[in-house]
């Protein structure tokens, strides 16, 4: 059966018992208003972001002109970064 997806508007947070078990250990779960806090998710978020960085940093390359402070390589190789980001922008829009 095909169902249409639900949106989050005006709902209250009611994670199902099954869902909680599925997500994390229930003993490490608290809820404040609509926000659910899983301790395990909080513990590993930094590790996961570290693994994502090589990919997510590509978004900063495209925004180099506008967010140069976000791209640390700039300080070591500013010329190369400038050229690469400029070519990348041209490719993105006109390629």
């Amino acid at each position: 059966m095909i169902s249409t997806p639900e949106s989050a508007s005006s709902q209250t947070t009611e994670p199902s018992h099954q869902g909680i078990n599925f997500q994390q250990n229930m003993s490490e779960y608290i809820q404040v208003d609509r926000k659910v806090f899983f301790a395990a998710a909080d513990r590993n978020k930094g590790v996961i972001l570290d693994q994502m960085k090589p990919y997510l940093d590509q978004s900063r390359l495209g925004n180099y002109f506008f967010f140069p402070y976000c791209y640390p390589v700039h300080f070591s190789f500013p010329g190369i970064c400038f050229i690469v980001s400029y070519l990348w922008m041209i490719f993105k829009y006109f390629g």
Partner: protein
Amino acid sequence: MLHCFLPLDDFQILWLVLEVGSGSGQHTQHFSSHYPNVVFQPTEYDVGLLPSIEAYSQDLNQHGHHIKRPLELDATNAAHWKAVLESGLEESAAGSTDGAAGCYDLVMTTNVFHISPWVVGESIVRGAGKVLSPGGHLIIYGPFKKNGQFNTESNREVSLSSFSFSSYSYS
């Protein structure tokens, strides 16, 4: 200095990231806090958690971050994937002229594969193939071993705890 002469709106690079299985929204909030220029589309199978994701998102969106309204995504449901794609295309139509097939630069899923039925993993890979833009990446994060060893202590804990999820049935 160039931004003084270039129209920012025309040259703003739009980066779309789809997160499959956002859970409570804690991870989405953490990622967006470090990448305010990226548009995140959170999704979750458990619709009861969508308001939590939205609550976390609103905190950052008030400060100019870009987390879209979370969508229900049962990875095995083609209609859900279609809605996810349409949501992404709405964003890309405003700032990108990339191909019409897919629109997401990145599809990420964390700690889902090892605690869900195999068909879910297959469906995520299949769905990602439909919504990713050419050259996009699918990132599967989980307690994988490298050279027979977990690379972090938290991954070892997740792997051990996943045994308690074995009775979970995906309906």
